[in-house]
């Protein structure tokens, strides 16, 4: 617990920007905890993708990191500062954008932005100007006349306008059009260049996978996987989607080198392990009474889907 000792936050300890252990939060009247014993470590320079379906506990985790919700148990540090006792000092070093952007509707865009920046001690003027130009936001209009995407952009400009050490973005791309989404993710990707880190949560892995260096999968409050994105990618094999003229069972397709077989209507989705297995599996499948066949490289979404399907299967077995 070296990092919790005041003054000892330099050196390799400082490299660890987020270090929380066993975070648990249960909302009143809920049978299951929203977050259950979650541990998370993010190092300087990382872009951490925090992925999970809606209601998995991503937002509650983010709220606990920002002290917007008190953990029932567990705790930890951000920048070596305690997440409960030193939350103001922590938030001084954080740029945050919520997935459900709520702004003061009666304010004009420019006044809203100035207000939000003033709470952070002011943003970096040049950066604010360039972000406003880049995202082309009508600042002279009242926020209530903004679309949800424009509100999202305004909140995003506020989050990106100061040199924070950690950007926490909770479902940030929701409501953005593809061009703005691309621009935004480009900005996020550059963030660690000046020594910061990023925690970006999403339920759509494909949207953020290309900028993440590490990814954590959460489900029903439990962290079920936490890996370097390259390690995840190295496990990517191929996907064969096939239909057959005669009756074929899933077990017939569980060939050597096959990771998983799923059925979607008449189609069988066959995921292969990484390496040279794909070609052998493809050959074996074509020996069956094939009606149609498509072949592609697997994506992270396939892995993501697989993780949650496995969990579902596990739960069904237990249930």
């Amino acid at each position: 617990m070296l990092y919790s000792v005041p003054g000892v936050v330099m050196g390799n300890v400082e490299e660890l920007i987020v270090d929380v252990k066993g975070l648990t939060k249960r909302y009143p009247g809920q049978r299951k905890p929203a977050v259950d014993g979650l541990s998370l470590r993010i190092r300087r320079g990382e872009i951490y993708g925090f992925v999970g379906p809606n209601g998995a506990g991503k937002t509650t985790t983010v709220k606990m990191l920002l002290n917007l919700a008190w953990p029932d148990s567990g705790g930890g540090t951000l920048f070596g500062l305690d997440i409960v006792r030193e939350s103001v000092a922590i938030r001084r070093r954080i740029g945050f954008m919520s997935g459900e952007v709520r702004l003061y509707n009666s304010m004009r865009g420019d006044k809203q932005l100035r207000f939000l920046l003033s709470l952070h001690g002011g943003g970096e003027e040049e950066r604010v100007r360039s972000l406003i130009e880049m995202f082309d936001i009508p600042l002279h209009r009242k926020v209530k006349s903004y679309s949800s995407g424009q509100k999202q952009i305004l909140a995003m400009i506020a989050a990106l306008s100061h040199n924070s050490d950690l950007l926490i973005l909770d479902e940030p791309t929701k409501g953005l059009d593809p061009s703005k989404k691309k621009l935004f993710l480009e900005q996020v990707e550059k963030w660690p260049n000046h020594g910061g880190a990023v925690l970006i949560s999403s339920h759509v892995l494909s949207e953020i996978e290309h900028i993440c260096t590490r990814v954590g999968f959460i489900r029903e409050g439990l962290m079920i996987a936490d890996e370097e994105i390259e390690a995840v990618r190295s496990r990517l094999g191929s996907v064969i989607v096939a239909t057959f003229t005669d009756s074929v069972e899933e077990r017939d397709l569980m060939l050597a080198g096959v990771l998983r077989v799923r059925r979607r209507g008449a189609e069988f989705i066959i995921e292969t392990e990484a390496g040279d297995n794909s070609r052998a599996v493809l050959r074996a499948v074509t020996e069956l009474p094939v009606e149609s066949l498509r072949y592609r490289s697997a994506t992270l979404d396939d892995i993501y889907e697989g993780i949650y399907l496995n969990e579902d299967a596990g739960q069904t077995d237990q249930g």
Partner: protein
Amino acid sequence: MRMLAKLIRDEWVKVLAFTILMSAVSLVQVLFWPNIKKLVPLVLDQMPDFFRGMVGGIATEGFVFYIITQQLIKNGVIFGSGLAILLGASAISRETEAGTMELLLSRPISRARVLVEKFVFNAAILSLPVIISTMIAWPAAALVDEAIDPIALLVAAIYCYLVVLVILAFTFMVGVVFDEQMKVLSTSLALCIVMMLLVIFEETMYFSIYGYIYPDVLRPIFVAGRVPYQLALTMAMISAGFVGLSYLLFRKKTI
């Protein structure tokens, strides 16, 4: 200061409307004094017991007592409480309900600061209509050939404001408990109605906050120039107590 500017921008219409309304009613009441003076002896005998004491006081003690009863009870009980409830209900629960509390608290600003600033700023803007509308009786008295001690009037207005402040602080605390403004408004309004009922009966009068802006408490301010330090301090402490409780409730609240 940004928070104060924002609060003023959000609440100025409400505060201005109440200041104008309360001041206009005060002015009308003063201007009605010549008629009241003639009318009171005629209607005194037909008054129910509860009102006879008050109206009888007007008949025997004249303009100053009339100002005490009409101005301060009106400003404190009716309009002052109404504004205190409206301001208290919007201070915290409006932000929580609209989701902007998350926006505030995700910035480097402590919950204690948000709470204290919101209470202090709301308390400050509540003082304007209560004190201005009471003080208007001082120059207006000349219009009906009467006079009133402005210092005594100011002391009474400040004291009356401290009583209303308790209602603001209570509503503020309810706003921390409930996220919906309507729930906060109805809870505080219900409490004020109960307190208005309690003040009708002599036995329960001093269980009500309004029992402390009754002529018996206010008369010494005007007649003997006595400042009710003890009561004023009690009111201030009750308000501080509610704000303290608000903080305890707000500290661990999930936003």
